[in-house]
């Protein structure tokens, strides 16, 4: 019988159709070999037939014999408007938690917020975020949140709570008893209005105190400018920036905004070979100091006196300190384009700083009072007032809102007793904390992601926060509670609108009709109302302040304690957040707990153990102001002699999870200097004989190896100085030409015709803040493993920030060479490099990791059998293995196994909490939750790549540069990370890749990484205006 040909179209008949029209581009080779006789010759031998029959029958029998799991899914019976399963919705909102502000866009999937990105429309944070912002979404799904109001340890209803508390409030106010709301700074105008309603209803008083105090700078501004507010700082307008003990990139006032501004003048390119000069005068090494061009090491007390010296030098005199004089010279030379900031909480120091900035003509240029911060308004007197009032019995009722003084007050022990005397004590806290544990009633606030609110971070800038999920528990917004107790029937949403209509709408003229303004603000997240005026500087009191500073800090001795806020933990508000607990500190790379930072010289002298391998650290007892803490001593380079630094916020006592109680509370060690808290004090340090394990993710290894005879440098990070760069834009990267020339191979290179994904990281912009690390964790469902596992070096981060110190031989700063002081730091975010010649790929026996045609090194988790050969063969060590079932994704019944785990203690409580259904709500449904026994790693956010491609396809257009942004890229406040298609000749990334500064990490081993880094350039030139 002759073979007849059938066709379905002319293309097929004429064979003009191209292969890439098919859904799958590849032939299926296995089927090809078996089916070959059928497909090519149209006949099958009897043997082949029997083979296939036998195999398929057996396979069918085996498959039919296995019990298939029943998976249940519930469709929307009534589909909510806007919600399309599988499609994310984005809502503009504003984050103001624990004293930090950020304008955000909340990503929700099927009604669940799962990711928080920066709002690019924001005039303040400009699309940047911080690790805290990124991690905050996890706190929404925290099982430790209160599920309903409580009276003592009893659950009560809101009706009962309202009735009992209302009656007590009434009787207290009738008896002319004092009622106090104690809170941290409130940046929400409507909340303040609600508090005002409450105040007027009961004659109550509102005390505002911030755990990390800005009282000093506020008082100073009140004295010198007559306004108790922190002005706007414009780091982008400054050519010379001097930070004195001020971590403005990490923690000070508005770090996301400052980092964004600061980085603008740090981006050098072939066309723009200029950058700002950043000098940092500090005692302990801060994240900001690590990014400075020059550091001057001083003792903590000298951070204050240096300001006075600088003032003398800037005013034309001499300070007697050559280093300070040199700084002053640079500042004066850049009058009008220079900026001095100090992190001190001493009003006198800040007055002198104001005088310096006035002398430098900074006001009106780099500093501006036209818009001042509402986020910092606390007074250190408030906590004393509370303690006195409660102790004397004057304050009969106290309501705590966004404040946890029993952790953060230096007199917390006294306050704990005093609170018991109050006739009524209420906390609005979302979850258990030290203060909440001590009060009579808990009226839990809703999470910010569940609530309507407004935030005005700075005067003239207004944000609306909108709820992105229905309330998970029987909680009620604090504002609504206050309104209710004040007798108002209005709900808070209407209250906000009414407040805006009355107070915000009239101030602007752009929108006609309140609804227009409101809708735009809700949509964009922000409305800015110009206005405000500069304040007038008054020099009176500056001289006496200067002499007061000299007197106060002259005798603090040789051993001084500096207390500071950590980049991850804030004032302690974030200790409940496992992502932040596990975020390595930018400088020390320590997770889970605090420690004493000690100078290296002191460690050597005292023979203190700093075991890099076993992570054992000697405990030291630090005593200051009559209180002491015992913590492990971690030596850090670039710390001034006699400086001992401890970060605040750890040492929680009241949380549901014992693992969060790591570290020691250092707040009691705070001193009081005048009216304000002092973070610097005289101390004694005693070395104990015990050691403690510290969960450190990276030890102090050096990338230069002197031991091998001469200094040889690993080609991991590259840097140069600005004068060198001005001369040659390949400075510091000269060897790359040779490396690229030597990159020859016998093998043919794979063609990358479509997209070729690339990433560029600017080492000059990276400040090491860890926002990208946390963003990656949230986006990619990266598990938290707990302290014990981190001690075992098993953190799962797909993206880590490597921190390297370099020593004086790298430094050419005029004639100065000061060993120990001239510590340079490089931060290098390191994720999977997606090598085009990836060592991991060829060693996997089952091809579970392989290369996509778009240059991605991809993981098929289903296929992975966990030999870990890829992880061994990865020169960048970015692959992570699931040692345990961290997220309850296992093939086995997770719950049953977990019960055993609870007994065995193999998994931390925090990790087990992640397996609860509530915590799992935060998981990104687009990213596979990995089971135990498989390798995982950075995917270049392949889910975002796919989504971007799909969107472009649906819109029938080519993919544009910028359509796809990775999670780390969106999180970065300084735009250090650029992602894009190398084959798109108009893309941003190709400009970076072709830059002479671009280099790949250890690319001489021919891995051909798709991540390139831009050389770090340090502005070592003495800036001449």
């Amino acid at each position, binding site marked *: 019988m002759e073979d007849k040909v059938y066709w379905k179209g002319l293309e097929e008949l004429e064979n003009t159709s191209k292969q890439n029209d098919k859904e799958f581009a*590849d*032939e*299926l*080779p*296995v089927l090809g070999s*078996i089916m070959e006789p059928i497909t090519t010759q149209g006949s099958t031998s009897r043997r082949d037939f029997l083979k296939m029959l036998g*195999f398929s029958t057996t396979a069918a029998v085996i498959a039919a014999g296995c019990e298939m799991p029943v998976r249940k899914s519930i469709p929307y019976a009534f589909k909510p408007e806007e919600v399309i399963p599988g499609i994310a919705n984005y809502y503009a909102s504003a984050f103001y938690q624990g004293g930090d502000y950020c304008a955000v866009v909340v990503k929700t999937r099927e009604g669940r917020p799962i990711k928080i990105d920066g709002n690019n429309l924001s005039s303040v944070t400009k699309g940047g975020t911080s690790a805290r912002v990124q991690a905050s979404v996890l706190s929404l799904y925290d099982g430790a949140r209160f599920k309903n109001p409580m009276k003592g340890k009893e659950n009560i209803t809101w009706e009962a709570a309202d009735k009992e508390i209302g009656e007590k409030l009434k009787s207290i106010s009738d008896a002319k008893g004092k009622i106090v709301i104690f809170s941290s700074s409130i940046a929400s105008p409507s909340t303040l209005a609600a508090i005002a309603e409450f105040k007027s209803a009961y004659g109550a008083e509102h005390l505002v105190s911030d755990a990390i105090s800005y009282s000093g700078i506020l008082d100073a501004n009140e004295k010198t400018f007559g306004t108790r507010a922190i002005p706007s700082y414009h780091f982008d307008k400054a050519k010379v920036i001097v930070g004195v003990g001020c971590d403005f990139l990490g923690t000070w006032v508005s770090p996301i905004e400052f980092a964004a501004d600061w980085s603008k003048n740090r981006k050098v390119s072939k066309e723009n070979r200029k950058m700002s000069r950043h000098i940092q005068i500090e005692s302990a090494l801060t994240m900001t100091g690590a990014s400075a061009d020059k550091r001057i090491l001083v003792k903590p007390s000298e951070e204050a006196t240096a300001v006075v010296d600088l003032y003398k030098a800037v005013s034309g005199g001499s300070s007697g300190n050559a280093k300070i004089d040199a700084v002053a010279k640079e500042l004066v030379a850049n009058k009008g384009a220079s900026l001095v900031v100090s992190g001190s909480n001493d009003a006198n120091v800040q007055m002198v700083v104001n005088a310096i900035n006035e002398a430098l003509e900074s006001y009106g240029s780099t500093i501006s009072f036209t818009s001042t911060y509402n986020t910092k308004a606390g007074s250190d007197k408030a906590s004393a007032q509370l303690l006195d009032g409660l102790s004397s019995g004057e304050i009969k009722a106290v309501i705590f809102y966004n404040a946890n003084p029993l952790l953060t007050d230096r007199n917390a022990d006294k306050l704990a007793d005093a609170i018991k005397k109050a006739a009524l004590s209420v906390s609005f806290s979302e979850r258990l904390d030290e203060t909440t544990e001590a009060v009579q009633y808990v009226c839990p606030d809703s999470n910010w992601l569940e609530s309507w609110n407004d935030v005005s971070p700075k005067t003239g800038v207004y944000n609306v926060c909108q709820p992105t999920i229905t309330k998970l528990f029987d909680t009620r917004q604090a504002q609504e509670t206050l309104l209710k107790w004040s007798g108002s029937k209005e709900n808070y949403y209407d209250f906000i609108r009414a407040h805006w209509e009355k107070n915000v709408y009239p101030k602007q003229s752009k929108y006609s009709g309140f609804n227009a303004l409101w809708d735009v603000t809700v949509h964009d997240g922000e409305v800015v109302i110009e206005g405000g005026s500069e304040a007038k500087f008054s020099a009176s009191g500056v001289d006496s302040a200067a002499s007061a500073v000299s007197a106060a800090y002259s005798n603090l001795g040789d051993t001084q304690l500096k207390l500071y806020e950590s980049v991850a933990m804030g004032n302690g508000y974030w200790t409940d957040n496992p992502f932040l607990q596990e975020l390595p500190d930018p400088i020390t790379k320590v997770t889970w707990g605090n420690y004493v930072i000690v100078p290296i010289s002191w460690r050597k002298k005292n023979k203190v153990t700093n075991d*890099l*391998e*076993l992570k054992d650290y000697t405990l030291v007892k630090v005593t200051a102001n009559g209180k002491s803490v015992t913590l492990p001593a971690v030596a850090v380079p670039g710390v001034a002699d006699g400086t001992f630094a401890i970060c605040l916020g750890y040492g929680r006592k009241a949380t549901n999870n014992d693992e969060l109680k790591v570290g020691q509370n250092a707040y009691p060690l705070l001193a009081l200097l005048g009216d304000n808290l002092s973070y610097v004090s005289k101390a004694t340090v005693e070395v104990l004989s015990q050691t403690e394990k510290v969960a450190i993710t*990276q*030890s102090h*290894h*050096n990338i230069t*190896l002197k031991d091998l005879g001469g200094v*040889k*440098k*690993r080609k991991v990070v590259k840097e140069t100085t600005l004068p060198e760069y001005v001369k040659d834009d390949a400075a510091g990267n000269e060897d790359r030409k040779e490396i690229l020339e030597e990159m020859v191979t016998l093998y043919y290179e794979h063609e990358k015709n479509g997209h070729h994904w690339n990433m560029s990281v600017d080492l000059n912009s990276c400040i090491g803040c860890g926002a990208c690390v946390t963003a990656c964790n949230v986006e990619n469902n990266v598990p938290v493993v707990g302290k014990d*596992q981190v001690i075992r*070096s*098993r953190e799962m981060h797909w993206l880590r920030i*490597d921190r*390297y110190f370099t020593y004086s031989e790298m430094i050419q700063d005029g004639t100065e060479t000061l060993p120990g002081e001239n510590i340079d730091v490089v931060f*290098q975010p*390191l994720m999977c490099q997606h090598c085009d010649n990836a*060592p991991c790929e*060829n*060693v*996997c*026996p*089952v*091809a579970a990791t392989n290369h996509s045609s778009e240059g991605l090194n991809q993981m*098929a988790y289903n*296929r*992975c*059998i*966990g*030999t*870990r*050969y890829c*992880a*061994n*063969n990865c*020169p*960048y*060590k970015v692959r992570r*293995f*699931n*040692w*345990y079932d961290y997220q309850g994704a296992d*093939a086995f019944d997770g719950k049953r*196994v977990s019960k*055993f785990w609870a007994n065995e203690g193999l998994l931390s409580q925090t990790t087990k909490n992640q397996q609860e259904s509530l915590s799992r709500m935060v998981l990104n449904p687009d990213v596979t939750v990995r089971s*135990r*026994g498989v*390798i995982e790693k950075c995917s270049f956010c392949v889910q975002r790549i796919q989504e971007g491609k799909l969107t472009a396809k649906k819109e029938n257009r080519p993919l544009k540069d910028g359509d796809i942004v990775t999670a780390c890229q969106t999180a970065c406040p300084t735009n250090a990370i650029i992602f894009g298609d190398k084959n798109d000749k108009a893309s941003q990334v190709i400009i970076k890749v072709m830059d002479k500064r671009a280099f790949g*990490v*250890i690319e001489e*081993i021919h*891995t051909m990484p798709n991540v390139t880094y831009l050389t770090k350039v340090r502005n070592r030139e003495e800036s001449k205006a």
Partner: protein
Amino acid sequence: MHAYESDFREPLINGDKNYTIITDELVRPTEKTYRGWWLLLIIFGTLAGFFVFCLCWTVFYGIGVWGLNKTVDWAWDITNFVWWIGIGHAGTLISAILLLFRQRFRTGINRAAEAMTIFAVICAGMFPVFHMGRVWDAFFIFPYPNTRGPLWLNFNSPLLWDVFAISTYFTVSLLFWYSGLMPDFATIRDRAKGKYRKMIYNTLSFGWTGTAKQWQRFESLSLILAGLSTPLVLSVHTIVSFDFATSVIPGWHTTIFPPYFVAGAIFSGFAMVETLMLIVRKVFHLEDYITINHIESMNKIIVLTGSIVGIAYITELFIAWYSGFLYEQFAFYNRALGKYWWAYTMMMSCNVLSPQLYWFKPFRRNLYITFILSIFVNIGMWFERFVIIVTSLADDYLPSSWAYFQPTWVDVGIFVGSIGLFMTLFLLFARFFPVIAIAEVKAIFRISSATAKAERAKAAGTANGGFVGHTTFGILDKDAK
């Protein structure tokens, strides 16, 4: 096989023997339980049980119960794997290469050595399987037909080569060992008293009757298998060494690895044979069949291979210096003087220094020194693999990721337990199977036994006017009486 052997050569079978005595003495261990056997079985059986327990623990909870971390993803698991594979080398070498080279001293030790190979490969095979994160998917590494379309094995991966190398090696070794056992099973059967015993050994011998045709086929099979397995001796450890040599990690990426690993494997294999044979010889009273001559021959191989390994270590250091490649230089600097210096010191002293004693004849022929050194060598060889694997991984390219490996009780339990498993299998083998190849020993009886030599000397002495070449064997004296 009745080749001439000089009377000046030491006999390989001592004592006054004939075929009956040989049969008696060699079959006896399978017919009665010696004292000490039970004790050893209980000790090692318990350890084997603990091995199973530790593996269950690992599979149940995850690889996290081991001491591995994000940087050191292989440690004791692959160390043990390579160590056991190395030990398994002596068997094939003795049975195949020595057979082809007609080294008669192999007959006294080949059976036990082959058994050791089988058991060592069984132990070795446990590690690549159980080091997998998802051991239940271990079948993915086999090229079985599936419906997953283009999903297929990665033939570039040395781990896959391992799968084929080891399974081939195991199969051929097993065949070799078993085919050699068949005539001896028949011998045991022929002496068996009980009905079931007879039946079982008959089954095991595949109905061997000892006809000329069977012997002829047996000899051919031996030669074919010897021919097949000779390349395997070189290939298996070569391929195992590719696991490291084909990677990019400094300290692993080394072309010297194949010969270096093969020499090391023979080295450790012979040491393990010695450890076992010295015990077997004592427990089963087989001093006449496993003679000092055998021991000395093996010690010569140990000093040779130990020295090869030593040269390899020094070559590595030289090449690291000579390469001018920073990472390689650091890897070796770190290996010798870094945080794992103690492991390197153990390796160097046990593997390179201690076998040098064997240049001296008194040490080669001293049983106590041999026993201690055989254990030293295996300790050293374990550390060699540990040094290669762990020190290279712990500190590779990026200092930010450097980490330290510390074993947990499960790591230790699995290693010690695998020794328990090995010894349990060996003890069972020694109790039920003939530990010395009866037929092969008989085959050299006429050539290389003290009895035959004495008889030849006597005959020659009569012919040569009473001159006797050798009188040290004690047999002539006995005859004189």
